[in-house]
């Protein structure tokens, strides 16, 4: 297998994410199970939206998927390699996955520009000037250039979240995991996110036209305007179970009260 797990002779690459009977403990108390018995396969280029109400375990599930904590039980393969948490040996695999935290979680001692440049500077040992030159196109693309020298605490939450996306993208990951990225976004920013993520998924010019595998969690399906028609897959996280729903049409047709609530519909209503 080569560096990217692609077999010679045109054999399909390993699926980026493959879970068999996986249970996930809470980040703050691993003894408390938040999601259990997950059997989930994410193929290359797929776009998954995982919906769930607050405290349903979306963040912990996504953090486990990103390798920030080990699964409580079961088998989790990332790019075909059995993964617990990422150690030094799995660094190459870790850098193929980008993660956007809810709220951004930027480094408060660095400016927005330095936040975005840090992964590049650290992993490629670039000087600050060289790193700043490298990140400039991405900052421009994401309309962050005017904020490059500003500290995160001085920037509105909308822009912090966007800077967090830029930081996750700077190493050009193959898989992008986004934890509730639309929460609290204003209307204009939300439209920008929906459009930009869609472009990334299909293959943005910035990433050389290569499609990106994506997993997005959300607690409000009603905000995903424009995402109804594309070939996205939806799943629901409820009662510690990951329930695949299928396409947007299946989401709308689902009679589950939890789905209706996430669609901001009255529980008794039909579409």
């Amino acid at each position, binding site marked *: 297998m080569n560096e990217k797990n692609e077999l010679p002779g045109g054999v399909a690459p390993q699926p980026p994410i493959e879970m068999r009977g996986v249970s996930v403990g809470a980040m703050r108390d691993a003894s408390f199970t938040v999601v259990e018995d997950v059997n989930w396969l994410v193929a290359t280029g797929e776009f998954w939206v995982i919906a769930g109400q607050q405290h349903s375990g979306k963040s912990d599930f996504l953090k486990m998927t990103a390798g920030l904590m080990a699964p409580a039980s079961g088998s989790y393969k990332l790019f075909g390699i059995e993964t617990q948490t990422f150690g030094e040996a799995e660094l190459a695999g870790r*850098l193929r996955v980008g993660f956007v935290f809810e709220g951004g979680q930027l480094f*408060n*001692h660095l400016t927005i520009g330095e936040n975005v440049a840090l992964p590049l500077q650290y*992993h490629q040992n670039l000087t600050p000037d060289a790193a700043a030159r490298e990140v400039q196109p991405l900052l421009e693309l994401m309309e962050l250039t005017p904020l490059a020298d500003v500290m995160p605490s001085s920037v509105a939450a909308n822009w912090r979240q966007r800077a967090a996306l830029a930081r996750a993208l700077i190493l050009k990951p193959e898989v992008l995991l986004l934890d509730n990225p639309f929460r609290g976004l204003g209307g204009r920013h939300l439209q920008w996110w929906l459009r930009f993520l869609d472009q990334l998924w299909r293959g943005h010019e910035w990433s050389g036209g290569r499609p990106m595998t994506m997993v997005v969690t959300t607690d409000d399906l009603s905000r995903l305007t424009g995402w109804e028609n594309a070939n996205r897959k939806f799943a629901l996280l409820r009662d510690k179970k990951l329930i695949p729903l299928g396409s947007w049409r299946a989401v709308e047709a689902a009679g589950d009260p939890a789905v209706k609530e996430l669609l901001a519909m009255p529980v008794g209503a039909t579409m």
Partner: protein
Amino acid sequence: MRENLAKAFEFADTQVFRRATRPKTYTDLLGRKLFLFLLTVQGLGAFALITLGVLLKKNGLARNVMGPRIRQEIARAGVALMPMFLFVAFALGFLVIGQTVSALAKFGAINYLGSTMVIVVVRELGPLLAAMLVLARVGTAHVIELGTARAMGEVEALEALGIDPVHYLIVPRVIGMAVGIFSLTVYLIIGALASGYLWAFLQDVTLTPGDYFKQLAEALGWLDFALLALKAIAFGFFIAIVTCYHGLAQPLRLEEVSRVAVRAVTQGVIVCVLIDALFIVLYLVA
């Protein structure tokens, strides 16, 4: 990476005990305190070994990021404290050396000045005072910064970016603290010895600068230089370990940060006293 932190803290989760109901008897209280102490020692020991391992293994990695961070920490735990240490050196010279010189002169024991100064200032007060002051000024800042970073999810963010938090956050602080305390100790000792003579001179003690420094030079042996360096570096290393451990390990909520800062400083003082005691034994044995 995460495995480094997890290893250090998996056996040292003292929060369960700290949040438990109040013990009913003194025996229970004593047992719990002892257990907490042992857990903390175990956690600190593991953390120190892991940090040392990362320091050696990742030496030279990401120089363009780590270099400025290390220089920044040396400046914070060293250069930035020089004005304050000048004042302290002056005060120490006046309080200890000036009065000692004056007292020895009264009893005609001025010939013992060198050895007295070496024992009091070079072996004991200089390094210990420097360590305590850096602990108070910089160690508390470490706990608060790291505790806040942990509570705000910045440590997780580092891990998500494939950056080892021990390498990025702890190693610069450990190096900065060790270099800072060593440099400031030398600075404090020189300043205190010089200002001490100045105070003695002002009290009309008949001792020429040449005689004074000759006595000091005769009283100082190679062992003093070697153990002084080792002691100052040990103070720096362990203060950084204690403060970083508490900042990074336990608080996951912002409201716990201030309480943990107090605990870290207390343990820092205890560690310094224990190291000092160890070096006294070494002086006596050597």
